[in-house]
C-alpha cells in the first residue's frame, strides 16, 4: 500500500481511543492531577458521598454547607469506585473515562460537518489539546472535562433528531444531555450557545438545502421539543441545586481571578491562559478563519468557535463583560478556551487532511510534532508557571493531630495550604470555617470580602487579609481553636492577635497555633440544610441518568449515520484559492 493511500483512510476510532489511553493513562496512573488546583476538592466531595450518599449537608467546610450547590455526578462516580480502588485512584479512573469519552465525542461531533477521515483526525488531535491537559493536570477541572465530553456525544443525537426525526436519537440525546448537566451544569448552559446553536444553525441550512429529511419548520419544532425535554429534565435532575441557588443566589463580593485579566498587559497570564491551552493551534488560527468562512455549512461552527475564543481571552476584550454582566465576576474563563479548541477540532481535521494529501509523510511528522509539542508544553508548564498549585508539605501529622485527644471538638483553619486544605478536610473528623468552593460560602466573614479561600488569603491582597482578620476576630463564635500555618507570612498577624505556636510538624514546615479561651465548636444554625427528600433525589437522579445513558448506548445500538456532506479536498473544491497553512 502506498504512503498516499495510507493517509487517505480515516483512523479507526478505537485506535484514537487507544492513543488517548496510551497518552493519558500513564499520566493518570502516576496521579499527576492529584496536585492540581481542584483535584482535592473533587475528592473531598466524593468522600462525603462515599460516607453519606443521601445526606448532602457537609459539616466539614464553612461550619456546614450543602453539596447540592455543585452537580454531583463525577463525585458520586468517584465515591462508587473509591469503595474498590480508593479515593485517589477513583478520581483518576473517572478522569480517564472523561478523557477517553472526549475523542469519541469530538469524532461524532465533527462528523456533523466533515467526513470520517477529517473527523478521525479531529478526534486524534483532541487527545493532545493543550487546554485539555491544562484543565486535567493543572486546574483539575474534572467536571468540566466530563461534561464537555458527554455533551459532545449528545449533540450528534440532537442533530439526528432535529434533522432526521429519529426518536431513538431524541431519547439518547436527552438522556446524555441530562448526564452532562449532572456532571457540570455550567457546561450545559454555555454549551447551548457555543455548541448547540451551531448544530441547530447547520441543521436549518441542511433543511433549506434539502440535504436532510426534515423541513425547516420541522427542525425548529423538533428543536423546541428537545429543548423542553432537556430543560424539564435538568430542572428535575438538579432540582436541589436550583432550589439552593434560588434560596441563596450568589451575591458575594466578586473574587479576583487571573483569567479575567487583560492578557496583553501581563505576559505570564497570557502564557497561562492563551499560549498553553491553544499551543500549536495558534498557528492554525488563520486556516480556521479562512476555511471556516469558505463554506456556508462551516460558518455556524466558525461563529461558535469565535465566540468561545473571545470569551477564552477573558478581560482582553470587553465582550464577555458586556454579555455576561454580573456573571462575568463569578465565572472563570479558562474553560472557554477549552471549548474553543473543541469547536476548532473539525476545522483542524480538515487542515490535517489537506496537509497530509499534499505533503504526506512530512505533514504527518509536522502534525505529530505540533501535537506532541502542544501537550508537552502544557505538561512542562505544570512546573514552570508561577501560579502552580502549592502545598508540598506532608499534611499527615496535621490530620493525626486533629483526629486525636478530642481536638476535633474544635474547628481549625489552615494557612498557606493551597489545595491541600481539601486533603486535610477529607481525612479528618474535625471541621473548618474555610473551604475550597466559593459558591457554597454563606459565612459573612467570607462573602463580604473579595477573596476566596482563607488558606490562600494573602494572594487576594487586602481583601483576603481583611477576610482572614474578620474570621480570626470571631474565633470564639465558631469554636476556632487551631490554626496550621505553612507560610510564615501569616505568623505576624497570629502573634499580634493573641495566638501562640504550640507544635511544629514536618521539620518545621508546618506550625500549629492555638488560642486560649475558645469554647468547643457548636453547630451553626443555617437555613441552607436540604430536607431529606432532596437528599434522596440528589442520591438517585443524577447517578440514575448516567446509568440510563450507559444502558441506552450499550443496548440500543445506532444504525450508522452517513454524513450529510462529505468534505471535498480543498484544492479540488476551490482550485483558485491554493494556500498553505
Amino acid at each position: 500500500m502506498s504512503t498516499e493511500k495510507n493517509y487517505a483512510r480515516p483512523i479507526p476510532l478505537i485506535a484514537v481511543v487507544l492513543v488517548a489511553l496510551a497518552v493519558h493513562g500513564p499520566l493518570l496512573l502516576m496521579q499527576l492531577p492529584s496536585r492540581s488546583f481542584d483535584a482535592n476538592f473533587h475528592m473531598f466531595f466524593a468522600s462525603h458521598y462515599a460516607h453519606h450518599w443521601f445526606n448532602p449537608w457537609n459539616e466539614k467546610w464553612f461550619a456546614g454547607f450543602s453539596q447540592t450547590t455543585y452537580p454531583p455526578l463525577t463525585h458520586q462516580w468517584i465515591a462508587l469506585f473509591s469503595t474498590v480502588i480508593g479515593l485517589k485512584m477513583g478520581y483518576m479512573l473517572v478522569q480517564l473515562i472523561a478523557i477517553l469519552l472526549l475523542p469519541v465525542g469530538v469524532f461524532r461531533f465533527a462528523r456533523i460537518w466533515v467526513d470520517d477521515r477529517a473527523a478521525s483526525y479531529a478526534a486524534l488531535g483532541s487527545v493532545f489539546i493543550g487546554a485539555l491537559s491544562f484543565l486535567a493536570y493543572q486546574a483539575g477541572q474534572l467536571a468540566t472535562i466530563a461534561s464537555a465530553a458527554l455533551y459532545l456525544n449528545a449533540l450528534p443525537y440532537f442533530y439526528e433528531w432535529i434533522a432526521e426525526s429519529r426518536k431513538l436519537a431524541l431519547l439518547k440525546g436527552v438522556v446524555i444531555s441530562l448526564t452532562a448537566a449532572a456532571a457540570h451544569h455550567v457546561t450545559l448552559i454555555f454549551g447551548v450557545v457555543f455548541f448547540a446553536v451551531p448544530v441547530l444553525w447547520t441543521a436549518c441550512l441542511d433543511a433549506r438545502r434539502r440535504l436532510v429529511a426534515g423541513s425547516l419548520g420541522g427542525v425548529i419544532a423538533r428543536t423546541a421539543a428537545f429543548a423542553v425535554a432537556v430543560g424539564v429534565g435538568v430542572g428535575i435532575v438538579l432540582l436541589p441545586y436550583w432550589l439552593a441557588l434560588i434560596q441563596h443566589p450568589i451575591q458575594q463580593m466578586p473574587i479576583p481571578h487571573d483569567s479575567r485579566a487583560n492578557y496583553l498587559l501581563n505576559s505570564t497570564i497570557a502564557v497561562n491562559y492563551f499560549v498553553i491551552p491553544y499551543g500549536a493551534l495558534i498557528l492554525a488560527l488563520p486556516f480556521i478563519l479562512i476555511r471556516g468562512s469558505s463554506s456556508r455549512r462551516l460558518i455556524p461552527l466558525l461563529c461558535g468557535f469565535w465566540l468561545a475564543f473571545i470569551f477564552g481571552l477573558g478581560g482582553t476584550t470587553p465582550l464577555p463583560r458586556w454579555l455576561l454582566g454580573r456573571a462575568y465576576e463569578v465565572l472563570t474563563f479558562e474553560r472557554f478556551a477549552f471549548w474553543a479548541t473543541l469547536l476548532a477540532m473539525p476545522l483542524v481535521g480538515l487542515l490535517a487532511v489537506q496537509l497530509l494529501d499534499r505533503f504526506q509523510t512530512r505533514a504527518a511528522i509536522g502534525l505529530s510534532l505540533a501535537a506532541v509539542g502542544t501537550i508537552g508544553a502544557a505538561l512542562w508548564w505544570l512546573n514552570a508557571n508561577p501560579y502552580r498549585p502549592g502545598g508540598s508539605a506532608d499534611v499527615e501529622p496535621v490530620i493525626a493531630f486533629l483526629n486525636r485527644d478530642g481536638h476535633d471538638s474544635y474547628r481549625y483553619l489552615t494557612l498557606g495550604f493551597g489545595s491541600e486544605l481539601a486533603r486535610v478536610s477529607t481525612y479528618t473528623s474535625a471541621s473548618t470555617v474555610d473551604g475550597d468552593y466559593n459558591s457554597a460560602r454563606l459565612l459573612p466573614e467570607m462573602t463580604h470580602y473579595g477573596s476566596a479561600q482563607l488558606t490562600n488569603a494573602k494572594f487576594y491582597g487586602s481583601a483576603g487579609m481583611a477576610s482572614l482578620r474578620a474570621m480570626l476576630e470571631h474565633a470564639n463564635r465558631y469554636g476556632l481553636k487551631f490554626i496550621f500555618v505553612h507560610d510564615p507570612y501569616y505568623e505576624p498577624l497570629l502573634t499580634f492577635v493573641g495566638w501562640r505556636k504550640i507544635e511544629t510538624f514536618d521539620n518545621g514546615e508546618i506550625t500549629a497555633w492555638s488560642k486560649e479561651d475558645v469554647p468547643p465548636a457548636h453547630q451553626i444554625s443555617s437555613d441552607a440544610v436540604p430536607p431529606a427528600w432532596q437528599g434522596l433525589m440528589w442520591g438517585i437522579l443524577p447517578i440514575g441518568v448516567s446509568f440510563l445513558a450507559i444502558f441506552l448506548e450499550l443496548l440500543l445500538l445506532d444504525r450508522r449515520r452517513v454524513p450529510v456532506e462529505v468534505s471535498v479536498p480543498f484544492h479540488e473544491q476551490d482550485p483558485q484559492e491554493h494556500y498553505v497553512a
Partner: protein
Amino acid sequence: MKIILPIILVVGTGGLMVLALLSGGNARGTVGVAGGSAVFTPSATNPQLALHNLLIDVQRRHWDHAYDALSKTSKADKEDFIQDCTGSNGSLRSFSSLEGFDPRPLHITDDQADMRVALHWSTPVGPIEDVRDIHLVREGDVWRAVWPEYKVPMVPAEVIPVTYLRWDLVTGTADDQWGSKNVDAPRVRIISMNAVNTAEGTIVMGEVVNEDTIPAFVNVNATLVDGAGSIIDEETSFDKIDHILLPKQVSPYRIDFPNVDLNKVKNVRMDVKAALVPASADPVIGVMDQKIDTDAQGKSVLQGDLLNESGQTVNISHVIASFYDNSGKVVWVSDGYVDRALLPQSSEPFAVEIPKSVSQKVQNFHVVVNQFSLARS
C-alpha cells in the same frame, strides 16, 4: 462571505482588544507573585505616565525594568532601590505587596515635576498606606523619576548584656499546651472603660492591668446588650491590645463594633480572660520624643521614635496608644504598625492617627509597644 467574514472577525477581535486597552484593562496578576511583562506599555511622555509605569514595575517586582526607568541622577543604587521597595531584615515591608497607588501632581513645569503618591500596601496585619513625594525630570522625550537616597542601616557587631527579667513555665506533663491550666490564672483587672459612638459604629476602649507577680496572656471581650436584654453583638480586643502583660503592666484595649449604634445599647458586659504564660521583658523598646503634631496631609498624629534597647532585631513593631482627657479618662485608643525593622540599638519613627474631634480633648497619652521577632516566633 469567504473574504468578508474573516476580515470582520479579525478586525472585530482587534477592535475589541483596543477597546479593552483604552478602557484601562485589568493588568493585575495574583498578589505576591511576580507578574509577566506587559505586551503593551505606553511611553512615559508625561510625569503621570512615568510614575505609573514605574509603580507597575515595582508592583510586579520587575526590578531591572524599574531601575532602568529611573533618572541617572537618582542617588539610590539598584540594591538600595530594591530594598527601599521590598524592605529588609524581615520588616513588615518585606512581607508586603504593593496593591495599588494613587498619584497626584504637586507641581509640574516643562522639565520638572513633583508628584505625591499614596502607596497602598497589602501586609499580613492589614492594609498600610505610605505617602511619598517623588521628583521627576524630563530627559529627552521621556520623563523619569529621581529616586532619593536610601541606605539600609548597618549595625556594627557589639556585645549587649542581657539583664532583663524572664519567666519560664515548667509543666508537669508534655501534653500541656502553652497556657498553663493547672495553676490559678493571673489576677488581671480592667481599670477603665469608655464606650463612644462614631460614624463607623460603637467603640469600647479602656485599659487593663496585670496585678499579679506573674506574666499573663490577656484578652478582653465585650458584649453589647439592648434594653430587652438581648445580645446585640460580641467582639474582642483582637490586635488592639498588648496580649502579654508582665507583672503590673498596663495595656490599652479597644473593641470595635462596626455598624452598631450606641444609642441602642443598654448595657456593655466586659469580660477579661487571663492565662499564665512564659514571657520575657526582652527586647525593651523605648518610646522617645513623643508629641502630638500634624502630618503632611493635615491629619492629627502622635509621633515619635521607637528605640530598640536590646541586642536582637525587632522585625515588626506595633504601637498602641491611649489618649486621656483632663480628668484622666481614656478618650481614644489608636494603633499603628511600623514597616521598618528595629535593629539593635537603633531607632525608627512611628506615627498613629488621632481623630480631629478627639485631638482637642487630649491632655495626655500612654504608649505601649508590642513586637514580633522572627527569631522568637
